[in-house]
């Protein structure tokens, strides 16, 4: 059973920015790569650092704490990162970004 929640207007998300949102108490971070949007749990799976303080360049997400890196599109870890990033299902409707919050994603 899906639980689609509205996050923001898709146009509010710009390249090279990781933007934090609180969706009913669950914190997420959204990023744009070209016309695609990706949404991850806010906290880095390593030491809980918010990924909103990290970096993205359209291909890679980097946490600013210990420079763990992931493929932006798949969440697959690269380099020193020991855990893949989880991605929330997303869709766009009428220019809005919706995220499926049916299952809260966590790394424990």
């Amino acid at each position, binding site marked *: 059973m899906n639980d689609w929640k509205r996050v923001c207007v898709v146009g509010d998300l710009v390249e090279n920015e990781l933007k934090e949102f609180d969706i009913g108490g669950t914190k997420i971070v959204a990023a744009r790569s070209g016309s695609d949007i990706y949404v991850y749990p806010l906290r880095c799976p*390593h*030491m*809980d650092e918010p990924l909103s303080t990290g970096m993205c360049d359209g291909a890679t997400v980097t946490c*600013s704490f210990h*420079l763990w890196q992931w493929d932006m599109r798949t969440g697959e870890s690269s380099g020193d990162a*020991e855990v893949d990033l989880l991605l929330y299902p997303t869709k766009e409707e009428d220019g809005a970004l919706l995220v499926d919050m049916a299952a809260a994603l966590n790394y424990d």
Partner: protein
Amino acid sequence: MRIDITGRDGAASFDCHGDQEILFGGLAAGFGLPYECGTGTCASCKATLEKGTVDRGWPDAPARRFLSLEKNEILMCQARPREDCQVTIRGKIPEPSHIVPRSVGGVIATVTPLNHNVLRLVIHSDVPMPYDAGQFMLVDVPEVPGYRGWSMAAYDPIAETLAFTVKMMPGGLVSQWLSSADRSGAPVRLFGPLGKASFQPERDNADLVCVAGGSGLAPILSILDRAATAGHFERHRANVFFGVRAFEDLYETDRLLAVAAAHPERVSLNMVFSEKRPDKIALASLPGVAIADGFVHEAMGQAMVGRFGGVLAYLAGPPQMVDAAMRLLVLQGKVPPARIRYDKFS
């Protein structure tokens, strides 16, 4: 007391007495454990106490704000065991350092001003304390509780004499203590060497980019010393960027100039002034140095355009500078994280 630490892919078990922090007990037992500052500010040694009780140490440790009390998290650099403890860390158990850190005594030899707000502190350790270039030592001086982390400001393979660079902090208890009387002969405790931002010429076969800000020049001087004596500049380049507010904030300039003069084709020196560009007379004392205005990371980004491939970067200085330089290397330089080295002190 017995300490059992479990990581994502391994474990460490060691004895730790009640007046020793769990991190230092584990490192001294030859295990690799996660840490950066070793002094309660960075939270890289954050761990979950699964079983047992500890004295949590410094109540005002800045990194306490990163701890979840719900998860019973501790800072391993602060926590001293009261009984046998089981601890889990969030990542893998790191590889141990090839030089096992230890606790030894020493005495202060000299304290000398290098400029209006930087001191050189020289300590004789009771036994040799070998270290890698770029590493730091924790130092506990009399009358001021707690360790301070200072990078060695030279590379000396004999390692009985350790030179540090200490910034005079307004209200800083240690810098006040050091500068308020003759401290020669005062006893100190040392723990180290520590730090991942090290340079080992046999391992680190690459061109270097060194970025230092303010009082962060010490580990860069150590790395340049080591590289020069190991013949690193016969094959590799070093681009050195030193950022300060104004000319009067420079120190150890003669040592930087000497390294560059000895390797003119290989070592380039850049000095970057964020508030006041030096006058002509001051500039005449910096022959061969590329001068820039602004922030040191920006000057580095401009000077290194198209030349980031294969470099090994060392960053040392104020946290904002290290962070800005790190972001530039990742985003603009596409430098892989494993080739960006720094030890965060906040």
